[in-house]
């Protein structure tokens, strides 16, 4: 019996990972929309709507994280079999829902899993969750690091001066530091193509960044490649290359700045 349970739970835990991924993708899409919107009108009402959608995904994330943690502890609990299963304390409602459901149905846990696989169900739940979000919770979420990053990136579209955090926020200065670092002038040239990054990817092994196609051509038929950065002795595989969303928007912003200052005599294209 225990084995069946843990297998189901593993499936549920994996589903939560997928949900977290979906939620992250959603934030990425919101970021992209916000960046495009900022090019036209950074003060539009739609921007405020995007802000709220972003905050809502963060809110849902906190549930996903909590459910997953509950499931993991439930799993640990079942494995240890130290007490009767129905005495376990589960703190949030949806876990209880699935948990009681699988208890009631006995052999029918698979059905619960199948339903959970259907993200539609979660989306319905997220609507429920979203409808319960209070203005205070929303205000608190504005202090979230990811949200600040979003606001900062949008700011960079139209401003050269440093971003002023209008959300108020914390005194410890950590976020402050992030912002100062990323507003410094950044090298947007790929060391392989010697051109601005196209589809920048970052090696998770050493942090070096390259244009995707250029670094892919380094692999040829090998699983791994030496890092081409001068002075770096690390090797990595394709799966250790991560898309760098941050660099993507930095490149966009820098190129936009450059095209604005095209009349600048320092910026002549060479004709010789």
């Amino acid at each position, binding site marked *: 019996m225990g084995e069946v349970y843990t297998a189901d739970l593993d499936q549920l835990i994996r589903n939560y990972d997928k949900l977290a991924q979906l939620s992250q993708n959603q934030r990425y899409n919101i970021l992209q929309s916000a960046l495009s919107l900022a090019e036209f009108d950074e003060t539009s009402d739609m921007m405020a709507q995007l802000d709220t959608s972003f905050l809502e995904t963060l809110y849902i994330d906190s549930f996903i994280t909590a459910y997953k943690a509950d499931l993991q502890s439930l799993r640990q609990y079942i494995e240890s079999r130290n007490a009767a299963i129905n005495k376990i304390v589960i703190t949030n409602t949806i876990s209880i829902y699935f948990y009681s459901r699988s208890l009631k149905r006995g052999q029918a846990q698979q059905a619960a899993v199948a339903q959970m696989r259907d993200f539609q169900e979660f989306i319905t739940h997220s609507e429920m969750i979203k409808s319960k979000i209070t203005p205070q919770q929303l205000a608190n979420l504005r202090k979230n690091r990811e949200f600040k990053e979003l606001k900062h990136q949008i700011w960079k579209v139209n401003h050269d001066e440093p971003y002023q955090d209008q959300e108020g926020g914390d005194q410890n200065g950590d976020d402050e530091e992030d912002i100062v670092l990323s507003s410094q002038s950044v090298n947007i040239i790929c060391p392989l*193509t*010697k*051109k601005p990054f196209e589809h920048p990817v970052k090696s998770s092994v050493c942090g070096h960044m390259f244009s995707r*196609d250029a670094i892919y*051509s*380094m692999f*040829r038929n090998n699983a791994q490649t030496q890092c*081409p*950065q001068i002075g770096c002795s690390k090797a990595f595989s394709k799966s250790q290359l991560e898309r760098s969303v941050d660099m993507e928007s930095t490149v966009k912003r820098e190129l936009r700045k450059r095209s604005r200052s095209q009349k600048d005599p320092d910026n002549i294209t*060479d004709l010789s």
Partner: protein
Amino acid sequence: MSDLALSRLAEERKSWRKDHPIGFFARPQAGADGVANMMIWDCGIPGKDGTPWEGGLYPLTLKFPKEYPVKAPLCLLPPGFFHVNVFDNGQICLSIIGDGWKPTISIKQICLGVQDLLDNPNPNSPANSSAYDSFKKNKAAYTEKVKQQAKKFPPQES
């Protein structure tokens, strides 16, 4: 032919034009039809002042393989060049364009690397026995030979 090789070489050319070390030149070879061959470059490497190499502008040819920048260019000085690390056919034995090649190394860095090698030969990997013997056993004769060679490669219009 690889797009990466050609587009990278075009960028190398741009960046060289924008900024390059004084006294050097580097440009794609003009083909018979007058069209530049991006895969072969002619460069000029000046000997450093205050060394016996001073006064010479040494012709360096870079031959880029189609796998460039994954593979290093073949770097050639004139055949019979007198240097400890240069083979008879002119091929240069230098780590940054050999085992130590990195696809991020620029043409400018190659040129500076070759200039540096001129007066800083690496006796641990000799490629030219007469230069090596003379360098080891008779420094005065070696220096004289280097100075004579410098005269054979006067700076040209670039």
